[in-house]
């Protein structure tokens, strides 16, 4: 993939654009025994399900604690739950978002929105912030600790794609606004604004690109990003080699992937039209199968717990 800017010079440009990068503004993520971390956001979050690096890192970083994760990322989603509306209105999408989060019983809520909303430009910022606040208000009764992950700046895409410059400068403004929401709400704010650029910087030695479209991470990108995110969350992560040689870690990550897959079948099943919506008179009887994924998820979590404690 052709890059318009060398990552290093891009980083310099970013720093210029960003002024000083905001650091974590509150206490680091202090995961407790029994915590249930729920992630919500767009494609960036959704793809964590299959790569599982961040979840793996957070799991092995707390070998003595039982921490579980639920990933509710949905491509193209926004604070208004736009991607979750299915046949309904945006309000239905939002209601679905709230319902799904609550059913996941979070004690820690990691929210990463803003990337898709920022396409609306500066003019859309207030609406986004209002939406974010509304989302947090609606979820306040979960009593979960909130972590606001900022979206990250894009890199140049393939030839023909618009330069990300204008988008990134808007995004910067969105990120600042998210950090203010975090301060006001006493939530942890984690800036990922320069995540892609930093990760790209780190990959120089490596052949594989960290992004192929300038907006999403590849698998190796996800791996590098996971270390960076964990660090910024304030989690003390051990040096880990995710190479194939590290069979144990490979197994753990595969177990996490499988758990996420099972949970995906549970929370976002295919054929919803027939199982739960307006054609449920046809296949509604099979909706009983869907909760049957719950014990399978739990079983898989036991496998994860075992692999985690056997680690060292």
């Amino acid at each position: 993939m052709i890059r318009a800017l060398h990552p290093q010079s891009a980083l310099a440009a970013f720093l210029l654009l960003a002024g000083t990068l905001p650091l974590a503004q509150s206490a680091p993520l202090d995961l407790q025994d029994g915590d249930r971390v729920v992630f919500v956001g767009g494609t960036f979050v959704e793809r964590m399900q299959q790569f599982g690096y961040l979840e793996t890192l957070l799991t092995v970083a707390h070998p003595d604690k039982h921490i579980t994760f639920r990933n509710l990322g949905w491509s193209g989603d926004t604070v208004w739950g736009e991607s979750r509306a299915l046949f309904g209105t945006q309000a239905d999408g939002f209601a679905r978002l709230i319902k799904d989060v609550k059913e996941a019983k979070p004690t820690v809520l990691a929210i990463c929105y803003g990337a898709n909303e920022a396409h609306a430009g500066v003019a859309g910022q207030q609406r986004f912030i209002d939406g974010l606040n509304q989302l947090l208000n609606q979820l306040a009764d979960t009593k979960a600790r909130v972590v606001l992950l900022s979206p990250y700046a894009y890199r140049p895409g393939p030839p023909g794609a618009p330069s990300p410059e204008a988008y990134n400068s808007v995004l910067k403004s969105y990120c600042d606004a998210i950090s203010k929401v975090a301060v006001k709400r006493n939530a942890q704010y984690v800036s990922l604004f320069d995540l892609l650029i930093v990760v790209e910087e780190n990959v120089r030695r490596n052949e594989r690109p960290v992004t192929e479209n300038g907006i999403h991470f590849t698998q190796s990108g996800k791996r590098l990003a996971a270390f960076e995110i964990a660090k910024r969350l304030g989690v003390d992560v051990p040096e880990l080699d995710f190479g194939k040689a590290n069979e144990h870690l490979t197994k753990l990550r595969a177990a996490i992937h499988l758990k996420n897959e099972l949970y995906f079948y549970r929370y976002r099943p295919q054929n919803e039209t027939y199982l739960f919506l307006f054609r449920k008179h046809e296949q509604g009887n099979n909706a009983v199968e869907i909760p049957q994924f719950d014990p399978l998820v739990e079983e898989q979590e036991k496998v994860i717990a075992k692999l985690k404690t056997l680690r060292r």
Partner: protein
Amino acid sequence: MNTINLNTSPNSVTSVSLCFCLLTCVLTARVHAQRDLKDIPDSDPEIERSSFIVADGFEVNLYASDPLIAKPIQMNFDADGRLWVASSTVYPHIMPGQKADDKVLIIEDKDQDGTADTTSVFAGGLLIPTGVIPGDGGAYVVNSTEVLHLSDTDNDGKADRRRIVLSGFGTEDTHHLLHTLRWGHDGCLYMNQSIYIHSHVETPYGVKRLNGGGIWRFRPETLELDVLSYGLVNPWGHHFDAWGQSFATDGAGREGINYVFPGSVFVTSPGAKRFVSGLNPGSPKHCGLEVVSGRHLPDDWQGSLVANDFRAHRVCRFVLSEDGAGYASRQEVEVIKSTHVAFRPIDVKMGPDGAIYIADWYNPIIQHGEVDFRDPRRDHVHGRIWRVSAKGRPAVKRPKLTDASIAQLLDVLKQPEEWNRQHAKLILKTRDKGKVVAALDQWLTKLDKSESQYEHHRLEALWSYQTIGGINRSLLQELAGSTDHRVRAAAVRVASDWQEQLGREALQYYMRAVRDEHPRVRLEGVCALEKIPSREAAKAAIQALDRPMDRFLDFALWRTMRELESHWLPAVMDGERVFDGDITRLTFALKAVDSPTVVAPLLQLVAQGKVADDRATNVLTLIATLGGADELGKVFAMASSAESKLSTETKATLLEALVATTIQRKVIPAGNLGALKELIATQHLRLRAAGLRAAGVWKQESLRDAVSNLALDTTANRNERDAAIDAVTSLGGSEGVKTLNQLAMLDNFDDQLRAVRSLSVIAPRNAAKRAVELLGRLPEGIDPSLVLTVLLGRKNGPAELTTALADGKLSVDAAKRTLRAVRSGSQQSPELIAAIQKAGGLSEAGWKLTPKLLEELVAEVASNGNAHRGEAIYRRKELQCAKCHAIAGAGGRVGPDLISVGASAQVDYLVQSLITPNSKLKENFHSLVIATDDGRVVSGIPIRQNDTEVVLRDAEDRELTIPTSSIEEKKDGRSLMPDGSVDQLTRDELVDLVRFLSEVGKVGDFAVGSAQVVRRWRALTWTQEGHHRLNRTSYDIAATEDPALTWESAYSRVGGDLPLDGLPQLKPHRETPQTTFVDFDLEVSTSGAIGFRFNSIDALSLWVDSKPTPLTGDVTLELNRGRHRLTLSVDRESRKTPLRVELIPAPGSKAQAQLVAGK
């Protein structure tokens, strides 16, 4: 049929003719697990193959088969001739504990003998992969929510690299998942999604969202993702012709081939206000589509479209011809037809050897909505690929493309096989761009101008530049001026793709296209302009109106003007001169916008006298429909002014529109409405009636006495009184109830009936009492629905009726018929049904379907059922099946078309559908029940829903428009087919009926062939008035739209002939024979000669568009664009042979016509 014209339908200003019998027969066609295990066939491929009836000159051989090829969903060849297949055993739904391990397979015919030698697994671990297409060094694979690119980097034949290319595709239905991957002539990857899918895809260009069906266009190199067209229920087939025009099939629509152009919108696209319809209305549903070409196939097959009718086990062929901006499509003899119940052709592709390949999903059970996911009889293990070849014609030598030089690849672009050209272009993409450009430039200079395919070769070159991401301005310019309109049209499409690079120049191409002499080039111009957000573009597009329009162009221009609205409408609002001050253009544009914003400018145009008289009605009606109170007031002033130069008819039309607006949107014209007093006294009946209704809905208390008196005046004209009764109802209040009660006391049934219906709206309790009383003494032949529909459609109607029935008594017959009426109503009330049964002393009514009975019936259908007797039962008037169901387009549209019901539905399923219609429902036939803020409850099948209105098709096949603002509650409803529809049938009759339905669409007597036979007729009914009119004039009057004549629908048998028995006869004079008059309509889209073939002309006379026309055998008529009517009289005393009329192509004629189908 007894028909009562009843003008007093409260809350409606139009007269509605309510049928005497509301018993509907909405059969829900669908497939179902079969209980008759004998139906599961032997899976031996040879047994299946021997069942094939193959087109003359062709043969079929087994190319590849199970065990490895289990459930093939999509297949595509790579440039080396290997066939890639996506297969899923997980479908329809992953089971808890099951591992998602669906596969992509590669099938190879190494020795090129037409049978596969190896099948290998390229990738596993997939979840219901619904699409696969090789390309870019691997294959694109749809894996539910994502499009993956899988590749094999170590050459071991297995994918080892996996990239997520796009994600965010919906999964609301697993047979709707992203599918039909297809490389375009332009190097883009096209992908389709179906009706229930909602997709949200993040790209470097922003988030792309598509709700409902549509065709995506994706360029992998730049990651641009756009939507080519919207809608279609299951667009499971998409391909391009040699000139880059797109066609699509629909696995649930019923219009055969659809012509797809940029921005076209088809059925079921959410929020759409208008749809483009397909080219073969009344067709069964299709899956897959391939435009076939190449030296292996005979000349008359070049450019044919092959698509699968998987329900009826057929592989069909269509032939296209030019028709204005679009095309006409005619079905040819099938490529394959079969009686084998598991033969499910679902994909079709040309192969590297020039033969046609068919993917056979092999399953006795199709679809998954209506059949239990876990039905044990679902086949999860079989699948076949069949190869169809022309006997005695050599196979095309498989081209060696992968290692070919650029020069060799370019020469492939001259070959007649689209397969070869397509793959050559894709390989060019992988070569050094600079070298390809240089070679292309060179190649162009060497082309032989005298060669017949010269223009096409150049077009391939243009597409090659496009495919590799290059540009060639001079070639574009030359092709935009080509002598071949197909090349010019394609050039405009390319210019649209190159818009950014072309800059200002692009607009010149589109402007020139809009003025082109060929309508398709104009269409491309109009579509391209839609993407240029400027007033200049709008101004250029609207010039398309200067030349003849057709339905495709009209749609495109309508859409372009809407999309560009913000660039020209504000200027109109500011009083600027736009569109060169051309009123035709301006009114088209304003009407396209169809929003209240256009009302003010339109009104101004009218006030300035700029709107020609012949357009005034149209424009003013639009204002009356969309305007606010002030504008409505102005229209009223015009409609009521004595000085206005508007005709009285126009005034009436406007007043009716105003009344409708008040009912729909509750807006009352502002200003002085005093003129109504004169209007209700005018001489003109229609204007007077409209005035009366206006007095009601506008609550003119001062006119109440006049209105009430008229309502009760039995000497006055019926239509006028009906309007007055409506007005009394609208005025309401205790005064209104009093008047209606007086009406109910009049000594005639018509008035009593009207009183009950009107009271239902304003005094339902009162109405319910009177209704029960009326039901007890219903005159012969009058259906209780007439009495009850309004009441049953009110929120508390069923409850009131239940109460009123508590002490009432009904005769057994009245109770039975009342039950039927209630079951057809919009609200289902078990209490009411119980009350009716009690009042009528009915015991358990009708069929009670037990597993045992079902089993017995299924067996009897096989052993004793007679399909011919069954067809006669189906056609019985009292069953009214055709009122809701069409067969091949002829009949109602409330329920599914039954054209292939026998081939898709199992016998037990048909029995259940008839006896308990609501147990399962066909896709797209789910009703909605809507409660409105004026106390009505309506139900129907949603046709369109957008932010302003919901349009339902009710059980009467009427379109009801409900403004979103008036909806209080909306919920999913039941089948519109009432329970008990077949209660009156004996067991033998039921068995025959089922036997008939089980044969429709199967190979045999009840298959709908490819001939264009007249299936939908109208027959003149005997009425006193009509008889009188015929008696006083001549037979010629029957060929005119004389209001004294009453017509009823008649339908040909499935086989295509119209039996004369049962058709109404008239005998206008003592000396004339008993005569039947029938007519049919056809819509001509391209003028010219059209042939009509009669099975026999004995005792027939013909009128064409009212003109007597000699009939000496088959006739050929010169018909112009537009609708035409052919009327026939049949001397019944000398003719007994049924009537059969077929459209046949006239030699050398370019004419295109479509028989008008419907109810």
